[in-house]
């Protein structure tokens, strides 16, 4: 059983029928039914913010009631938070978001080597990204959350 970190971008593309990579993400979830899907609270907070704004309360309740129960929530303790904060500070002014730094620090701590993600920030030699897809222009251009 492989542990797979699920990122905000994958959750959003999965829910949004208009996302051009929605089918790819859905297939990735289908292909890994026997693996252990994990995420953390910062991804949940970020996803809730975007879903509430763009998909409304129905989107939020679907995320909370139907999607997240299938994904294990891993704790982010103070030490991990501060480690991510240091990485984020050192990486400025690149566009890698703080939430992505938390995800990467969590993957390092837990020895997780696979991520379900559509975000170019995870493009690291030691991380296998699923689904295999090139990042969208908006992603590769960087962002600053």
């Amino acid at each position, binding site marked *: *059983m492989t542990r797979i970190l699920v990122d*905000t*971008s*994958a959750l*959003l*593309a*999965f*829910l*949004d*029928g*208009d*996302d*051009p*990579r*929605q*089918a790819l*993400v*859905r297939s990735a*979830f*289908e292909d890994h*039914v026997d693996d*252990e899907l994990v995420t953390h609270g910062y991804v949940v*907070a*970020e*996803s*809730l*913010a*975007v*879903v509430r*704004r*763009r*998909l*409304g309360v*129905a*989107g939020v309740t*679907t995320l909370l009631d*139907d*999607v997240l*129960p*299938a*994904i294990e929530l891993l704790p982010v*303790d103070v*030490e991990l938070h501060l480690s991510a904060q240091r990485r984020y500070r050192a990486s400025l002014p690149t*566009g890698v*978001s703080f939430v992505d730094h938390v995800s990467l620090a969590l993957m390092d*701590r*837990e020895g997780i080597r696979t991520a379900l993600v*559509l975000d170019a920030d995870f493009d690291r030699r030691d991380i296998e990204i699923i689904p295999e897809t090139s990042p*969208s*222009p*908006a*992603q590769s251009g960087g*962002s*600053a*959350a």
Partner: protein
Amino acid sequence: MIRTQVSLTADQMRRLRTEARRRKVPIAEVVRDAIDRIVPSDPGDRRARHARLLAAAGRFHSGTGDLAARHDEIAGEGEW
């Protein structure tokens, strides 16, 4: 939480301590994680949760299709 007592070999204890140090968590957390991996929760429950997740695929339509690509910007637009 239920307290219990378990006897380990010296080598198992050494490996457990090493892993706990690597993760920077208590030894008990490594033990709990190992149990969850070896004896996962009811597979039927897991599959039911996964099926419910899959049923939500593409349920909504943003009209823009850019939520995943621009989520950093969108998250900063309004109230959390």
